[in-house]
Every structure is written in structure tokens, then in C-alpha cells.
């Protein structure tokens, strides 16, 4: 036969909890019970609610001049929350972009660190001992390679039950490093989950302008990485996909790709005005698919949630977020010498001199030459 089909491909889309909060029992049930217990769904709902409230407060902090540019997570919470739950805290590695606040928090980052980062303070990136996370990634599409390297280290050291997950946007899939990350992960066969939060926009560039392919997930197939598209506003679908992906990675040793179809309900960041490039109608359609609304509906249907609980949660969220803001704003000002402190394990002479004379010298000239004495700076 001179002409044969040598490759065919397809991508499945998974939705378990629909927009009205109705569960697809056949997909949700495993061994006679739903893959997420009511307690787990409640936990996710609470995490999403607190995350959403923090997001709203962060937005206000920026607007009132108390914080710099901030990218809202609003509308995308189910991705980070359910993925965060499916990954193993303390052994798996989280390599985020910047719309995964909830997953970072679940894996050990105090929330006020995230605010500190956006308040222009590197201490927000000083990941606490034991938390397996990389900091928020402002440069787009570069960190998926780091996740691949982390997963490779797990493999080299033969650490069996470990996996890395990296999050990135639809826009990030255009960068060359994204393709490099998938190719490395695939050829080296390492346990890394690529999680694309396809929120339909990269600032003002819609997904259809970003790529001509109907799905993001299919990009993984060309690297022979198994891939699935899920409803990213559905905690069940996201949880199941990430849990299964993790099992696959850990058992088979190779990577996995998940596209969470979701939507950025807010502006790109507080520096953006999305009304310039997208319609209110589009936003309101997606507002109807809000992950918080459908998760709550599900819980109410299960009689696991009621107005009283909601009231209690809202009050608790306010208190928690209030404390987060207080912690971020209450931190002592960074020392000016911190500009130098973490440049190297040991500072070289030039850097030490610059640090010690930064208040007394304009640098570039030895102050002793002109009779100026360098004084230890006290800032």
C-alpha cells in the first residue's frame, strides 16, 4: 500500500459538573461513590471563595494605591483549587504562572506572600522551607522547562511517588520554550503535568489569534504526550484529570497534558481595560459558567450547604483576608542593603563596596581619593 494513514489524533473533552451544578453520575462515580466527597467539594468551595475574596480585595488595594499591578484570578479558581488538591503536598512540585494563588496557598505559601510579591517586595518569593513551589512567574512561558527539569531530577534520583505540575496560559503556548519543555519531557520521559489555563485571552489577543488550532491540548500530541481538555470551571473534571494525570506520570514515568477551558472574568491585570477589546456579552456568558456558582449549587443540592454556612464562610473569608492584608502591609520595610544581600552566596568586593557606600558615594570612584570617607550605611 503506497499511501497509509500513519497518525490520527483526537482530543476528548471532559465535563462532570455542568453549569447548573448537575453532576454526571456515570463520570463522577468510582467504586460507588463520587470521586470527590462532599467534604472535599466543600473544602474546594471554601478555598475558591476565600481566593476570590482575596482577589477582590487585592484589586481594591491596587486601585487605592496600596499595591502595584495585580493579575486577578477571578473566574479561573477551579483550575488551581482542584489541581492543587489532586497534587501531593510536600512531595510534588508546583511551578505556577500567576493565576494559581489557591494552589500555591494549598501547597504551603502563606497568602500574604502573594500580596507582597505584587507590592514590589521580593520577600513574597521567599518560599518557606518545605513548601515545594517556585515563585509566581511574570515572564511568560519560560517556567515549564523548569518544571521539566524538576521532574527529571525526581527520575534521576529514582524518587517514585513524585510529580511536578506547571501552570501556564494559552498565550504562553506560543513561546518556543513551551515546545522545548514538552519535547524534553517527552523524550526524557519525566513525571510532569503541563496544565494550560486556557482563559481565552492573552491580554488583548484572543485565543483564535494566538493559535489556529481548535484546542490547546492537541499541541501535546505532536510530542506524543497524552492530553485531555477539561471544563476548567468544573472542580470534578479538573480534579479527575489531574489525579489521573498524576497517576499516569508516577506509574509510567512520562508527562501528561491538561487543557482547562476557562475564562478570565477580570481585566488582564489592574493595568488593563478589557472593555477595549472584548464585549460585555462575551463576559456575561462566561460569568454564567462561574465555578463558584456551580459548585455551590451542587453542594446545596446535596444538602451539604445552606445560607447559614455561606454566611459563616463569608465572614470567615473577610477575617482571613483582612489578616492577610495586615500581614502584607505590616511587614517591616525592606532594608535598602537587601538589594545586594541575595546576589550571591558570597558578595564579591565590588558588590560589598557598592553596598557599604551606597549612601555616601555616587559609585564609580573611590571616595578616599577625594577625601570622602565611606561610612557604613545604616539604612
Amino acid at each position, binding site marked *: 500500500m503506497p499511501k497509509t494513514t500513519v497518525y490520527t489524533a483526537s482530543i476528548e473533552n471532559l465535563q462532570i459538573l455542568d453549569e447548573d451544578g448537575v453532576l454526571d453520575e456515570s463520570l463522577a462515580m468510582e467504586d460507588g461513590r463520587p470521586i470527590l466527597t462532599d467534604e472535599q467539594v466543600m473544602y474546594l468551595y471554601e478555598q475558591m471563595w476565600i481566593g476570590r475574596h482575596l482577589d477582590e480585595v487585592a484589586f481594591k488595594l491596587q486601585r487605592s494605591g496600596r499595591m*502595584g*499591578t495585580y493579575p486577578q484570578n477571578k473566574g479561573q479558581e477551579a483550575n488551581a483549587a482542584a489541581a492543587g488538591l489532586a497534587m501531593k503536598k510536600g512531595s510534588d512540585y508546583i511551578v505556577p504562572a500567576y493565576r494559581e494563588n489557591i494552589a500555591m496557598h494549598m501547597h504551603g505559601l502563606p497568602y500574604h506572600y502573594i500580596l507582597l*510579591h*505584587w*507590592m*514590589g*517586595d*521580593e520577600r513574597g518569593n521567599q518560599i518557606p522551607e518545605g513548601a515545594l513551589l517556585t515563585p509566581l512567574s*511574570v*515572564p*511568560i*512561558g*519560560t517556567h515549564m522547562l523548569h518544571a521539566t527539569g524538576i521532574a527529571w531530577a525526581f527520575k534521576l534520583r529514582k524518587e517514585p511517588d513524585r510529580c511536578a505540575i506547571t501552570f501556564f496560559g494559552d*498565550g*504562553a503556548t*506560543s*513561546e*518556543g*520554550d513551551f515546545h522545548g519543555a514538552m519535547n524534553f519531557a517527552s523524550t526524557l520521559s519525566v513525571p510532569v503535568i503541563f496544565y494550560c489555563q486556557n482563559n481565552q485571552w*492573552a*491580554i*488583548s*489577543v484572543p485565543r483564535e*489569534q*494566538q*493559535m489556529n488550532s481548535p484546542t490547546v491540548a492537541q499541541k501535546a500530541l505532536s510530542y506524543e504526550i497524552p492530553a485531555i481538555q477539561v471544563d476548567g470551571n468544573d472542580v470534578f473534571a479538573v480534579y479527575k484529570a489531574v489525579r489521573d494525570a498524576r497517576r499516569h506520570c508516577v506509574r509510567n514515568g512520562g508527562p501528561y497534558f491538561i487543557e482547562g477551558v476557562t475564562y478570565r472574568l477580570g481585566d488582564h491585570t489592574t*493595568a*488593563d481595560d478589557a472593555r*477595549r*477589546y472584548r464585549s460585555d456579552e462575551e463576559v456575561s456568558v462566561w460569568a454564567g459558567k462561574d465555578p463558584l456558582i456551580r459548585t455551590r449549587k451542587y453542594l446545596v443540592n446535596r444538602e451539604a450547604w445552606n445560607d447559614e454556612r455561606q454566611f459563616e464562610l463569608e465572614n470567615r473569608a473577610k477575617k482571613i483576608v483582612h489578616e492577610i492584608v495586615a500581614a502584607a502591609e505590616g511587614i517591616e*520595610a*525592606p532594608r*535598602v542593603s*537587601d*538589594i*545586594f544581600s541575595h*546576589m550571591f552566596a558570597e558578595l564579591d568586593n*565590588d*558588590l560589598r563596596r*557598592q*553596598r557599604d557606600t*551606597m549612601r555616601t*558615594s*555616587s*559609585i*564609580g*570612584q573611590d*571616595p578616599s*581619593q*577625594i*577625601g*570622602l570617607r565611606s561610612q557604613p550605611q545604616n*539604612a
Partner: protein
Amino acid sequence: MANLTLVQAINLALAQEMERDDRVVLLGEDVGVNGGVFRVTEGLAQRFGEHRVQNTPLDESGIIGVSIGLAMAGMRPVPEIQFDGFLGPAYDQIVNHAARFRNRTRGAITIPLTIRVPVGGGIHAPELHSDSPEAIYAHSPGLKVVMPSTPRDAKGLLTSAIRDPDPVIFFEPKRVYRAYREEVPEDEYTIPIGKAKVVNEGDDITVITWGASVFQCLEAMDALPEDVSLELIDLRTIDPIDTDTIAASVEKTGRCVVVHEAPVTCGLGAEISSRIQERCFLNLEAPVQRVGGFDTIMPYYKLELDYLPDAQRIGKGIMECLAY
């Protein structure tokens, strides 16, 4: 004449060059309907069509790589890299490709390309949005590097850059995008690449700077003792450096301070002071003084003003140099 900000002057230059020459196309992340994140290309997609003001995929290497192809095939691409820090992924295409084609083909293939990049700190931005990498590109042969500080210069220099037969990196000091207005001729005009501007004439000391630091230097100048007569030079073009203007000034003053935001080590100040000692050794009354960023990573914004040379630190440098 129109009273314009830097952003508006650049926008006007782009519009006029697009009007004048169909080969001029703009491309980059968000440059289309949104008008760029700084609104520099505001209204241009609507006016000239999205095919000439093309939103691209999020791929800096791709943006410069395809621009090289466009230029080879007779177009005049003006790509935008959204922020200084994101030149990183495009570095290979700029330095190893755009910069080399003329030489490696012995003139057979040339790359008329203007890469616009907002540059520098001081705007409270997130990380990688505040860097000053001009020396890296000045160090790379085959590229011209321009950084105007005022609306009028920006318009004239951008026009020259777009008409230039070779690749130009056009840095736009974002800190002063909207900080100052100036009367700008509405008709088209050019300002030659490679010519510095004497902003203020003086006899005692020469201060050389560019970009947003020009305004910090003016502030420092105002705070100096009355009797100090300072000559302030805005370099405007970083590569090629206008050594003649620099030398003429330092021959007169005998003292010089170079100010830039970028780290001092291997910054442009090093090159400039070297040229000064080559050209004006016997005129010098003091070592050339550099006031720059520290040799550290540009800090996040809580500390950025402690990192950037401000009027106070510049003033100190000037006084030190005068006291020598």
C-alpha cells in the same frame, strides 16, 4: 506644532511613516485593537487595518524572526517588544540574525528593521518590566541603538530609524512616556541617528546621560550651587556614540560624569569614559565619574528608587567630580 507627550509623538511618527510608505508594518503583542499596553499604537489598527498593525502570538523570538523575513522581502517592519525584560527570548534573533545579515552576505541581504522597546525603571512595575539593557545591544556589532528622552527627539529619531537601511533598537523610556509634553512639529522631520544633543551649555563639568535619566540630571542640576556651570548632554543615540560632541564638551570642561540606570559595570559609562581618556586625556582635571545602577538585579519596586540614580546621587557625583 502640537503639544505632545512622548507616547503621542511616537504614535504620530508611526502614523506618518505608515502613511508615507506602505512597506511599513507594525507587529507585536497587543499592538492591534488595544493599541499596545502603553497605547503607543493607539488608533493605528483602526486607521491602517489590522493587517498593517498585526497582533502576534506571544513569542518574542518569533516577532523578531518574522520581522527579519519581512525586511528581507522588502518590507519595513516595526516590531514592538512589550517590555525591556522580554527582549530575552528575542536575543538570538536580534544579535545572531538581524545584526549579521548584511555582513554575512557581504551586503546582498539587508535588514531595515526598527525594534521598539519600552525601557527602564521607576514606574512601579512588576519584575522584568524595569530593566535597562542598552549596553548589551550597543556591545553587539551590527545594531544601532537609540534612546530619545523627549517627544520632539523621539519623533525625529523614530522617523530616521524606520528609514534607516539597518536594524535599529529604539528604546522608549517608559518612565517619561507621559511625564512631559513638548511642542512637536506636526510635519515630518528627521533627527540623525548618532548625534547627541547639548541640553544645557556650561563650562565647569560635563554630564552625559540619556533616556529618563536626562530628567533626573536636570533636577540634580537645579539643586547645584549657583556658581556651578554644567553642560548636560543627552546622548540620544547610544550606538553609534557621538564621540565628537562628548570630546568637544570635555575638552572645554575637563570634568565629566556619566549617568545611566543600567548597572555600572560594563555599562555605557565605561565605554564613554574610555573614549574620553582616549580623546581628552590632557584636558582632564578629574577621573570620569560614573553614576549608575548598582551591579545587582533591578529590585522590585519597593526598592527601585534606591537603585536608580536620582537627583541626589547624581548631584553627589557631580560634586565629587568637581571636588577632585
